[in-house]
């Protein structure tokens, strides 16, 4: 048999495909898909903003459930000196065999008291606590069942009644932008005409840039994506912050039953793209970028926290010499000031000696040549 023939026969032996050099790892995505469906997903979403901006209604609309059946709202009198609480609701929802463990972290009382100085502190403390717990679990000996309670995304509701961001909004976002992915939203957008929405969005985007707030940025799409996708992505980016409307009720509009709000002058449909950006938010949050939000949380915010934590701990160690720490520390502490100085001196000495040596060598060399 000639080499060509032998080659041909070898190729025709494989039965799975028509390609010349088929190995089989093209099925990897399917395997990943299968395994992930089996494992299930989890997602932690935080909602923050003043009372009465429609946070609970929006969450219900996003996930098409009623998470807030028996909640009790406080009176104005009780809210004068209220402190911020953190409440968690966890639900298990399933769609087409894919299971999602969804945790919604609520922040009742934020911005409601008369004196709101440092009202975000309980929230930053909570986020740090979750990071710390994950850090400990990750560094522990038995890592089989780590619960990931880290907050993956924070939806911040901006009231539409003003001219832009208020001091409390700026302070909150600045305190949290390096700990969690912040997605600012314009709440109750049905009180703004399309012109007013555009003006407010431009204003808010300007102020976010001016104050140096780092909100969640959509990842750039690959250059080999198709035009339609790129166009959608561009539109999405220009639409931030999303102006959203939520609804707990279903109304009849244009012959269909849709989620909406019934007014004497018309019906606002939550899922109508010309009425509000709810659909864009839902697509972005759930359908396309949920996993990216988790990745950014793990790769950026958590890593920052972890590095910061370790640095603090090792510098503390050098000061205290022996400290009982709950997690194992790397055996190389950063040197303190004294040793550093000595090291520097020795370095300089060595350098000087080397220079002298070189000079002497040169001299000898010259002598030789002479």
């Amino acid at each position, binding site marked *: 048999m000639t080499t060509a023939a032998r080659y041909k026969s070898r190729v025709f032996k494989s039965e799975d495909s028509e390609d010349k050099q088929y190995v089989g790892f093209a099925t990897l995505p399917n395997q990943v898909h299968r395994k992930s469906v089996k494992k299930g997903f989890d997602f932690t979403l935080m909602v923050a903003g003043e*009372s009465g*901006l429609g946070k609970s209604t929006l969450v219900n609309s996003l996930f098409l459930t009623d998470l807030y059946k028996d909640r009790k709202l406080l009176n104005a009198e009780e809210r004068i000196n209220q402190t911020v609480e953190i409440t968690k609701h966890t639900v298990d929802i399933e769609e087409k065999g894919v299971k999602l463990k969804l945790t919604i972290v609520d922040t009742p009382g934020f911005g*409601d008291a008369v004196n*709101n100085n440092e009202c975000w502190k309980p929230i930053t403390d909570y986020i740090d606590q979750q990071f710390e717990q994950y850090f400990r679990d990750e560094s522990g000996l038995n890592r089989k069942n780590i619960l990931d309670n880290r907050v993956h995304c924070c939806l911040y509701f901006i009231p539409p009644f003003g001219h832009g961001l208020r001091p409390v909004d700026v302070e909150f976002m600045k305190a949290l932008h390096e700990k969690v992915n912040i997605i600012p939203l314009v709440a109750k957008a049905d009180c703004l005409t399309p012109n007013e929405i555009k003006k407010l969005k431009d204003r808010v985007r300007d102020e976010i840039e001016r104050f140096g707030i780092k909100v969640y940025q959509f990842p750039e799409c690959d250059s080999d994506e198709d035009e339609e996708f790129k166009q959608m992505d561009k539109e999405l980016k220009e639409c931030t912050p999303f102006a959203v409307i939520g609804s707990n009720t279903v109304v009849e509009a244009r012959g269909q039953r849709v989620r909406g709000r019934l007014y004497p*002058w018309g019906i606002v449909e939550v899922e109508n793209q010309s*009425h509000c950006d709810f659909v864009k938010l839902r697509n972005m949050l759930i359908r396309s970028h949920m996993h990216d939000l988790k990745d950014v949380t793990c790769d950026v915010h958590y890593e920052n926290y972890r590095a910061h934590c370790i640095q603090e701990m090792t510098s503390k160690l050098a000061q205290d010499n022996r400290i009982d720490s709950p997690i194992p520390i790397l055996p190389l502490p950063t040197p303190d000031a004294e040793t550093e100085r000595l090291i520097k001196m020795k370095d300089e000495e060595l350098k000087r000696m080397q220079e002298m040596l070189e000079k002497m060598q040169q001299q000898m060399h010259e002598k030789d040549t002479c």
Partner: protein
Amino acid sequence: MVLPEPGLRMEQNARSLTLSGHVGFDSLPDQLVNKSTNQGFCFNILCIGETGIGKSTLMDTLFNTNFENFESSHFEPQVKLRAQTYDLQESNVRLKLTVVNTVGFGDQMNKKESYQHIVDYIDTQFESFLQEELKIRRSLHNFHDSRIHACLYFIAPSGHSLKSLDLVTMKKLDSKVNIIPVIAKADTISKSELHKFKMKIMSELVSNGVQIYQFPIDDETVATINTTMNGHLPFAVVGSTEEVNVGNKMVKARQYPWGVVQVENESHCDFVKLREMLICINMEDLREQTHTRHYELYRRCKLEEMGFKDTNPECQPISLQETYEAKRKEFQADLQRQEEEMKQSFVQKVKEKEGELKESERQLQAKFDQLKRQHAEEKSVLEEKKRALEEEIFSFSNRRAAAELLNAQTLNLKKDKDRKNTGFL
């Protein structure tokens, strides 16, 4: 400006008579009206609400004009008040309207002091009126009354209840001004939510003892409509200066993708109710209430603070004159007392200074004596030394003389010896 007098007391023993013909004093109200129309009316509104809630737009819509409006920033460090006065005219009636807006209300992180500026502003207006009243030469009919007649408090349409800031502020203001709460930007609340929201607001106000302005029901001509309107409080309003074409008419409205909110449509919002109540029917009552209730309360508190009373400790009424006299005496006595005190303290100070000077004189004297003694001591010591030295010199010179003598003697002896020796030779 025509002010109603604080309560005409009707004579108890007046008989009522029937007239046998037409006298003509039924034209009195018309005379009053003519006079006040010629003078012109004055009305001051205070609008309290968060930045951007729609205060200026509502004022524009209510009075169908375009007041000069500035868009405020959210970053004011403190609450301020901005007052603007306008002259308006409708048919032959002139109105001097002052609109006072809060700037930066509700924006600060710590809103504990937010109400204070508003309270101070209202008190200042009362104070200036009080000062004018108490003047010796006063011209009340020419005086520009700047007291706030109505306060529109704009509630944000959260749909749940009042905010804590709203409650705190309204409690501080309810005894100083007629508060009319309105729900702003009401086109974001649906009908069912609105009913619940209004009930919640009113129940919160009642349970916290906040007294908002109630439209008067004692006048039969307007009692029915006022009672109905009282039940619709707080009014849910929408403001707009833009006009939209609805069914061949240009009406004030807001155009949304899902419909058009017409400002003057009673099934859309309560704007028409507010306009009727505030301007058409009860404007004069608001002014009257401000003068007879809020201003009188302020005046009473202020004068009581200064020490004036209507009755002395034996519960007999005393006139202002007596009080003035008493006050003057008190003031004089006080002055004298202060003078005495000053004299006393002056004398005291002089004595102290004298004492101090004496003391230092004594000290100097003592020092002088001491130094003198020291001087004498040293002198005697030196004398001793001098004597000792002289003795030494004397003895030394003696010794020297003795030594020289000895020397001379030994020299002579030597000479003799030498001579003797040479003599032998």
